[in-house]
């Protein structure tokens, strides 16, 4: 399990680094929002979910997609706009979909996915299943009306919703202190009578433990749960927008003990010794290169199919 989880985080890290390189090299276009530094949250949450559970993601969603589906090829092909992409080239970076694996899409609107996740939770209750619906969002989205409306409604109807706040300290370029009156998001859950936990989002062990509690609570029909995961967005908001952040702040978060991969490795020196990690790195790099080649070799969607399938006039 330890190796598996580490490998999942590593896959996200290498995926993001590889696409950053290709993006800067002009190999593909559009917006990209990188997940580097937040890997433990996606991997921790998804480690407790099955394909029948739902995940609703954000504009910064590559990590969520990979953690839920393990579909590296479909993700890169989607970024390239190819027909083999997970959304057949219709969505791109912010709109990866894989409903068969319970991945119900990224979202280009901050806070836009929270009500949708409420709907999947409602459908689980309606159909009498024990599926759960997980929605990721940032602390920026916790200032949107959709967050508050959805929390109230989820609590009211006791819906199986897990609201995961990835508090990465920045809403685009605005720091949390300038956007959020009290950065303890669990207090917002308290206001709606929703159980919650605040965790170090860069510590996979902590995230897994919290995710277990949340999933157990929600799956047992006790209503929604909120996780406030403290983390840090190491990269700028968006692939092409440079942002200025205090150098000491950036340096602090880039210290090995604050990096989710290093932190997990330090906790498990035996299972994740240097030889094991080196072997995993080789495996993951190979898998990603294979996916890149797959995406490069894939065709673009055909306009005639587009016209036919979507009745374009």
């Amino acid at each position, binding site marked *: 399990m330890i190796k598996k989880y580490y490998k999942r985080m590593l896959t996200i890290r290498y995926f993001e680094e590889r696409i950053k390189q290709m993006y800067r090299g002009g190999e593909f276009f559009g917006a990209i929002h990188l997940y580097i530094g937040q890997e433990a949250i996606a991997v921790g949450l998804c480690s407790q979910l099955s394909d029948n559970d739902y995940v609703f993601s954000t504009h910064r969603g590559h990590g969520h997609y990979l953690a839920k589906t393990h579909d590296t090829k479909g993700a890169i092909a989607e970024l390239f706009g190819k027909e083999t992409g997970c*959304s057949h080239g219709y969505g791109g970076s912010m709109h990866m*979909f894989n*409903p068969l694996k319970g991945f*119900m899409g990224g979202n280009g*609107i901050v806070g836009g996915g929270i009500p*949708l996740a409420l709907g999947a939770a409602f*459908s689980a209750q309606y159909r009498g299943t024990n599926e759960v619906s997980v929605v990721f969002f940032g602390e920026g989205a916790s200032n949107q009306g959709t967050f508050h*409306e959805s929390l*109230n*409604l989820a609590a009211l109807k006791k819906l199986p919703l897990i609201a995961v706040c990835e508090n990465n300290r920045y809403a685009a370029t605005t720091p949390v202190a300038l956007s959020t009156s009290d950065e303890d998001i669990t207090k917002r859950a308290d206001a709606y009578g929703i159980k919650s936990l605040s965790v170090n989002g860069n510590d996979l062990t902590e995230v897994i433990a919290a995710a277990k509690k949340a999933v157990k609570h929600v799956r047992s029909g006790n209503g929604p749960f909120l996780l406030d995961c403290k983390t840090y967005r190491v990269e700028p908001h968006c692939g092409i927008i440079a942002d200025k952040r205090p150098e000491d702040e950036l340096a602090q978060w880039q210290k090995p003990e604050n990096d989710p991969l290093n932190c997990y490795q330090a906790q498990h020196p035996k299972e994740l010794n240097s030889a094991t990690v080196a072997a995993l790195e080789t495996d993951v790099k190979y898998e990603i290169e294979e996916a890149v080649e797959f995406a490069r070799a894939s065709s673009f969607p055909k306009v005639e199919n587009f016209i036919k399938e979507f009745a374009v006039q």
Partner: protein
Amino acid sequence: MRKITYIDAMNEALHEEMQRDENVFVIGEDVDIDGGVWNECYKLMETFGKQRVVGTPISESAFSGLAAGAAMCGLRPVLEFMYMDFVGVAMDQLCNQIAKLHIMSGGQVKIPVTIRMCGTGTGSREAAQHSQSLEAWFAHIPGFKVVMPATAKDSKGLLKAAIRDDSPVIFIENRNLYYEKEPVPEGEFIVPIGQGEIVREGTDVTVVAVAYSRHKVLKALEMTEASVELIDPRTVDPLDMPLILDSLAKTGKLLVVQEATSECGIGAEIVRQVVEKGFDYLDCPPVVLGGKNIPTPFSAPLEDHVLPQVEDIAEKITAFAKYQI
């Protein structure tokens, strides 16, 4: 044929569709209490229970998104706005989520949501925030179908069609028609989305009347000698342009009557398509008779001034009929 009200006809459609398909559910403010504020959900709660008749807080964004998310997972929600005017607070969920999820997913998810815009209409002195006809907002956003039934029969047949459609359908109701009894066939029938109706045949002028305007035009026809072909498009997106163009080929003259402001409205869209596809049919410039470009004032003479009245319509038709090339 038996006569029932527009609201009862829709209520019958809901009962029948919920009976037919257990994935159909109703969600909105007050729908579970006393049959809703318009009595539009009469007996639904008693018949189908609270899991399928979901009353909500006043949180239009959340419950619109809830409907969309539930639809992504295979349910068929009928989502209700108490007044169409209230949709402003939920526009992101409607226009960025509901309208776009199907295509953004590459066709992997369907969003069969029926969005009832209740209580639309004018003339009942409800002032600027309760008197809007916002059909053009939604017709302008790719991804929706937009229907506007003007009769009890169409309200039932189109609601059933909307619920069975795999695309999101904006279903715009008119409060002035709610409690009028009209003939409605018994049992199962569907009014296909995208199909207009020739209400009255004629040879001088083609009048396309959207929603409640159909009734105003019928009254106006009592005040004019002109032979008018009256068309109710019933669906404003997609428009039944062949029906309108065929009529124009006969009359050569087009008047569109609507309650929405004329600027950038459905009438303007009909004229655009007529100019592009049927320019040679036109004997004179087409005209849109719609609301004036100002928020609707409260006081009766002021409200009447900004909306097309029966007399205005009659006058315009008479002038049109007399127009010679």
